[in-house]
Every structure is written in structure tokens, then in C-alpha cells.
């Protein structure tokens, strides 16, 4: 029997933190992403040529939403579990009658919800600056949810692995951000020289951005089915790692 009160309490507690720090949790990522729309969409975008028949400002939107979703999912989920470990309040969650799955649903569910919320707000904001078209809204929603979920799981793993605030920042700053910038958020990978096109295919973010962009404009660097499969694969890998974490008690139980 699931501890529904436990999951609910944990989820609400995490969400309350978001709304208590509204400026930092929601306003800040939305504002910084919106600045890209203003600069590239309204100011410079009009002077740039179309990409695959899509105005540059509009072309940017899916990539920028992904950039924000990835960053926020990892940041929220990693902080959500790292902070109680750091201050010691994790004892309560670990001693509560909650299964590992319930703990993950509580923490990761809240981080995913925040990312989705941010994604939707950014999307709405973008529509104010650039002409938007979403040809496959359900596919868009599917990619948005899967990406938020899988990168929240990834962030949760980072939050368990990290034993200092520095480590908490290392993977997002040194790995995720470069991968996102080089993953076709600002360009189509067909613009790259052939060698770089091949190398780029090893970047998992390419598949997320490409699939997500396809749901908007039906243009993609890789087949949308491959994008979906890669996203699901990443989700599966995160689930397997977390299963191992709870099975062994890694960094949670001595």
C-alpha cells in the first residue's frame, strides 16, 4: 500500500519552497530566457536568415525552452535532496515508512512540476516576442514532460552523489550547459561541418532539442522516433542508477 500522505506531504513541502522563493525559482529563469527572445527574436532575429524555413527567433524557442528545462530540472532536484542531506534533516525521510519509489515521487515529482511550470511560462512569454506555431502539441507536451522528468531524476542522482556545494554545481555547469549550447539549441546541426555533425550525435541533448523542435515546426536534425527512444533510454538509465542507489544505500545510509 502506498504511503499517499507521505508522498503528498513531501511534494507539497518541496513545492512550497518554490513559491516561497518565487523570484529565484520561477521569475529568474523565465526572465533570463525571455531576454534571449528579446535579443535574438525581436532585435537581431529579424535581420537573420530563416533556418529550414522557420524565422530564427521562432527557431530558437524550442531550444531555449529545453535549455531552461534541463538547467532547472537538475538544479531543483539536486538541491531538493542535497540540502536535507547537508543540514541533516534527511534522517526524517529515511526513518519514515516510505519506499524509495515514494521518496523519489515526492522529490522528483516536485522538481518535474516546477520545470513544467517554467517551460509553460517561457512558452507563453515567447509567444509575445516571436511568431509561434505548435503543430503537434501532444508530442510537445510529451517531450516537455519526459525531459523534465528524466533530468529531474538525473539531478536527484547528482544531489545524492554530491558531498559539497561545489560538486553540486560541477556537472550542471561543466557538462550540461556546454552540451546544451552545443546540442543545437541555437542552430541546426546541418549547419556544422560533416565531422562535427557526426560528433554531435553523441550529445544526448541533440535528440531532446531535435524532437522538441519537430513538435513545433516538423523540422528535426534526427528522426523524431529516434529522439523519443533516446529520451526514454536516458530516463531508463536514470531509473536503473536510482534503483542501485536505494538498493545499496549509497550516500544515504551507512
Amino acid at each position, binding site marked *: *500500500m502506498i*504511503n499517499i*500522505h*507521505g508522498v*503528498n*506531504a*513531501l511534494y*507539497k*513541502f518541496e513545492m*512550497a*519552497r518554490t513559491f*516561497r522563493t518565487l523570484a529565484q525559482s520561477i521569475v529568474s529563469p523565465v526572465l533570463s530566457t525571455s531576454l534571449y527572445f528579446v535579443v535574438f527574436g525581436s532585435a537581431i532575429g529579424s535581420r537573420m536568415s530563416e533556418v529550414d524555413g522557420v524565422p530564427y527567433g521562432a527557431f530558437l524557442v524550442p531550444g531555449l525552452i529545453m535549455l531552461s528545462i534541463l538547467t532547472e530540472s537538475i538544479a531543483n532536484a539536486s538541491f531538493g535532496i542535497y540540502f*536535507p542531506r547537508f*543540514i*541533516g*534533516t534527511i*534522517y*526524517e*525521510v*529515511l*526513518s*519514515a*515508512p*516510505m*519506499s524509495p519509489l515514494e521518496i523519489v515521487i515526492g522529490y522528483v515529482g516536485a522538481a518535474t512540476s516546477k520545470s513544467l511550470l517554467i517551460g509553460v511560462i517561457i512558452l507563453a512569454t515567447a509567444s509575445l516576442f516571436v511568431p509561434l506555431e505548435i503543430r503537434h502539441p501532444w508530442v510537445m507536451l510529451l517531450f516537455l514532460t519526459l525531459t523534465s522528468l528524466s533530468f529531474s531524476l538525473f539531478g536527484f542522482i547528482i544531489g545524492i552523489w554530491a558531498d559539497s556545494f561545489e560538486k553540486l554545481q560541477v556537472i550542471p555547469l561543466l557538462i550540461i550547459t556546454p552540451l546544451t549550447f552545443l546540442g543545437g539549441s541555437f542552430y541546426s546541426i546541418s549547419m556544422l561541418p560533416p565531422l562535427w555533425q557526426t560528433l554531435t550525435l553523441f550529445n544526448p541533448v541533440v535528440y531532446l532539442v531535435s524532437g522538441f523542435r519537430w513538435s513545433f515546426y516538423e523540422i528535426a536534425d534526427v528522426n523524431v522516433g529516434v529522439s523519443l527512444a533516446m529520451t526514454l533510454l536516458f530516463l531508463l538509465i536514470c531509473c536503473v542508477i536510482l534503483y542501485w542507489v536505494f538498493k545499496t*544505500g549509497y550516500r544515504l*545510509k*551507512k
Partner: protein
Amino acid sequence: MQPIIQIENLSKVYANGFTALKSINLDIREGEIIALLGPNGAGKTTLISIVCGIVKASSGSVRIGGYDNVKQYRAARSLIGLVPQELATDSFESVNSTFKLSRGLFGKAPDQAWLDQVLKDLSLFDKKHEWIIRLSGGMKRRVMIGKALAHQPRILFLDEPTAGVDVELRQDMWQLVRRLREDGVTIILTTHYLEEAEEMADRIGVINKGELMLVEDKQVLMRKLGEKRLFLHLTQTLAKIPEALAAFQLDLSEDGLTLIYRYDKQGEHSDITQLLGAIEAAGLRWRDLDTEQHSLEEIFVNLVRK
């Protein structure tokens, strides 16, 4: 009656090879207050942490209310409330919101009336919506206890609950613990303050170097191990103890004015009458006498030294 907690052959060896617990066996009765005493690093907190599911045992088993704490962890853990040694609180949350979280985590439906009662019992009601960071150390300690009580546990673990708190708060906490016991809550207390154990516990367990050296009813323990001493204050100075009194193995104080008689540890079969007769026969006069029993602290120190 089945014990509410049964610990069998519980051992813990940490990854670095340190043996924290060595085959602990302990039954805890429902409704009692048991104090676990031991020096730093003795294994008290490790024992509590394993029972509560925070640390994994290397071997052995724990049953709580009849439920295995690993295989039936939901049922087992829902009976437990834990107040850890460290002051670990969500600084930027209100007192009430952390209470609500605690209650929910343990599978209980929201019940603000109960939480209000806990807040009142702990004199925290006027701080209900205050951020925890703004509370004093003593108040934070109360918050920790309140969180553990938020889900109405049948068993409460208090790991050094009064460490670093002032006398008034300590007295308040002792009162609270007594009230909880009256309500049927079983309390497992670890403490450095022997006075605390002496004041509150029904039974005392002594842990040292990962071993449970003894578990005994407090009164029985004090009777068994509490050596009694009789001090006879003489009217004249003695240079040495007379030969006639040699059989009583007396000690003489440095100033030669007090005879000290150590009698049997049970305190039941002493030879005080014979001793007093022998002293009179030896021509000694005494002006006063008093007796002294070892405190729990002395008993504890003696046990740990062994």
C-alpha cells in the same frame, strides 16, 4: 507480554572496518523508559539509527511491535518517532509546516488539532508560524521533539535530548517525557547526563565499545552495584586502626578522625551492629555517623573502566 522492541544479535561494522556494535541483544518493554548510557563512540546512536532504519545492520534483526524493521519497514517505522542528537531543522520553514511534513511522512492524515496540541504541550504555539531560524536553541530542540510527536508514535527515541539545553528546559522535557509515558509511549533515551537517567529511567542499559554490558532495572542496578559506605566520626584522633577491628577491613581517613566501613553491595547483610559493638569494646567513642551510596554516575564509571 511481548516486548515492543526485540533486538537480536545485532552487529554493525562500518565500511572503514570500525565495529560499532557487537551482537547486541535487547528487549524493550512497552510503556517503559529505558536509558542507554555509554561514553562517546560507544554505539548508542548507531543502535538507535539501525532500529529507526537510518543505518543498515551488518547482521542480526530488529522487530518493532512484532514487525521486522527491514522486511516490514512500513508497519515497523510508523510506530517510531525519533529525536536525533543533532539540531537538524529546516531553517527557512515555519514550525507548523515542518510539523505537517513530519506527520505526513509517517503516513498520517493531516490533523491540525493534534499538531496544535503538540505545539501547546511544547510551549511553541505562539511560534507556530515563525521561521525556525528565528528560534532559540532551546526552542529548536522543542521543535525536534514536536516533529517526532507529530504522528503520535508509540515509541519515542530521544538521542541526547537535553544536550546543551538550560536547566529549565531540561526540567520541562523531563515533565514531557513523564507525561508521554503516562500516555503509554515507550521511551528509549540516550544521555550523557546520568542524573537524567537516574531521574527518569525504569531500566538502564550500559553500552561500551559496541557491547551491551548490562541491562537492569534501575533500582536493582543501584542495589547490586551501589557500594554503601558507613562513616563513623570519632571524638579522638586515631594513629592506626586497632587490631580488634581488623576483621571489618576499615579505612581510616587521613586526619585520623573518621573510620570508613564498606559493606556488602546488596546492602542487606551488613555487620554494622557487630562493628559498633566492637568499636565500643575497643574503647573508641564516636560523635556522629553517616552513610553514602554510590550514585549511578559512579556505577557507570566503574563499569566502563572495567
